[in-house]
């Protein structure tokens, strides 16, 4: 057999080279025109939303003064906390430095925003600075109100069977220490979620599924029981997903307690108290996963940016749900957890929100109207055991909006969805932070 002609043909090599170049050029993002401006843009918060926004604005604007205000030196990859709390990743997996992600050409003020005056258009910082803005992007994230759970404090996490994975990487690791003891010794595991809006509402379910799966392979069936306390009459905000989760719970013998909101913990007796429509009820536990109520930071609530008639106990920013622009102060936008929209407290939402705000902001700087709209898209790789997940994607209307229709079924437990969560998600997130996805 002689392949000499193919191997040594110059034309063949040229054709291969051309094919390679064509492949490389496919999928390169279109470059939008840059806009010249002297505008002062302030971004409060250097989390996923603030950082992605800063990177995109630097790409789009020439001459803008972009200031990012955030006191935290550490950036947290929050979607990874679930994996840390199941012993699948170390705490360091979720950590990086804020400055690693911020672009050249922005000013980072490492203080917290203490006051916002949307009339005078200024932001005060904890260091006593007052920063004026032409446009303000509010993206400080949210606050976990641990004090709202009577008898609970964060120093309890990791001991006496108490976990709280949302509180940060160290707490997620300590959560695993408590959960691991449960998976080895058995008993009753109680998994909760708050009655407020919360970031990634799938996370409480993921934790329950993961710990159940691990316990089934360590201590074994019959030696442990999982109680899931849902805050209302469903297990997930999207009805069709809620039904699927209910079926999986039945399959795995996970018992759902509807309309049970955790209000107090008695760590000495290992008893949790829940508020229910029929009054308070107690549940004994060997492992308790606490997720506290979640609210907008005080600075937002005190600045008058919050909704006056919705989520009044939580204080989310009053924005148009499609443009994320403040309804009373058009030069203010909100992004990420703090935005007062019906869905969207995930990194996937941020990925879709940021280009919308970018479009409207850049349009305003060029005296035109933006056209982009956020439809409430969010996605949740809903882990159902180690090695499998359901890729749930939905919008404001609770429609399932699968990215790969016909290929990856949203309500099917798949290995490929797990691969996405475990390996592809962080990379996509990192690309988003850099404004590239």
């Amino acid at each position, binding site marked *: 057999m002689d392949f000499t002609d193919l191997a040594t043909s110059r034309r063949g090599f040229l054709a291969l080279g051309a094919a390679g170049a064509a492949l490389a050029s496919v999928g390169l993002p279109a470059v939008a025109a840059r806009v010249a401006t002297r505008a002062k843009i302030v971004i409060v918060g250097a989390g996923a939303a603030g950082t992605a926004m800063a990177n995109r604005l630097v790409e789009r604007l020439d001459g803008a003064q972009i200031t990012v205000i955030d006191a935290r030196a550490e950036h947290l990859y929050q979607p990874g906390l679930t994996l840390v709390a199941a012993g699948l990743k170390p705490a360091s997996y979720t950590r990086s430095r804020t400055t690693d992600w911020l672009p050249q050409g922005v000013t980072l003020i490492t203080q917290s925003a203490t006051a916002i005056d949307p009339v005078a258009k200024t932001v005060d910082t904890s260091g006593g600075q007052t920063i004026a803005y032409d446009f303000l992007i509010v993206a400080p994230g949210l606050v976990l109100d641990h004090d709202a759970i009577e008898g609970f404090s964060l120093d309890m996490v990791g001991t006496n069977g108490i976990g709280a994975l949302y509180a940060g990487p160290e707490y997620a690791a300590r959560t695993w220490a408590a959960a691991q003891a449960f998976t080895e010794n058995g008993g009753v595991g109680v998994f909760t979620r708050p009655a407020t809006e919360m970031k990634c509402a799938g996370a409480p379910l993921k934790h329950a599924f993961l710990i159940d799966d691990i316990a089934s392979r360590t201590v074994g069936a019959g030696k442990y029981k999982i109680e899931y306390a849902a805050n209302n009459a469903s297990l997930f905000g999207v009805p069709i997903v809620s039904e699927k989760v209910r079926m999986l719970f039945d399959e795995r013998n996970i018992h759902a307690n509807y309309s049970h909101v955790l209000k107090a913990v008695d760590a000495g007796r290992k008893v949790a108290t829940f508020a229910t429509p029929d009054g308070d009820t107690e549940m004994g536990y060997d492992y308790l996963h606490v997720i506290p109520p979640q609210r907008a930071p005080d600075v937002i609530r005190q600045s008058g940016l919050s909704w006056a008639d919705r989520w009044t106990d939580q204080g989310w920013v009053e924005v148009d749900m499609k443009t994320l622009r403040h309804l009373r102060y058009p030069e203010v936008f909100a992004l990420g957890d703090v935005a007062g929209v019906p869905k969207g407290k995930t990194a996937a939402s941020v990925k879709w929100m940021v280009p919308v705000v970018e479009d409207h902001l850049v349009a305003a700087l060029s005296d035109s109207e933006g056209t982009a709209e956020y439809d409430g898209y969010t996605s949740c790789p809903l882990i159902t055991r180690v090695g499998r997940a359901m890729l749930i994607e939905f919008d404001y209307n609770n429609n399932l909006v699968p990215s790969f229709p016909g290929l990856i079924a949203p309500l099917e437990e798949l*290995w490929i969805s797990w691969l996405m969560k475990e390996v592809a998600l962080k990379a996509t997130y990192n690309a988003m932070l850099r404004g590239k996805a």
Partner: protein
Amino acid sequence: MQNLTLQTLIAVFEEIFGRALFWAMVAGAAIVTIAYVYVLVRDRSVSMRKFLLAQISMPFGALAGVVFVQAMTSSHLRDIGGPVDVLVLLGVAFIGAIGVAILVYTAQSLFFRSQSSDDG
């Protein structure tokens, strides 16, 4: 998924294997490919004996690919949940098989040339 660019794909692979391992694997794959093309051009023929050994090595390459990906992703064969998972698994096995076959063929050509240079 809003958009999938080459840049995003590279970032994904860097994350899967770690930046150093990923680029080391890319470099390794490039070196083997270049060496493969080199031996094809040099020998101006395909040796069927080397090709046979390369083919025999393919199942081992397929298995190694699958084991490698599952070890990297805390998963197991029991996690295959639907047709798309089977396709992904077969894809991984296929890539492992082809990669090892090329590697084995090239290694034979580079290191055992005198023994088999006349069997094409």
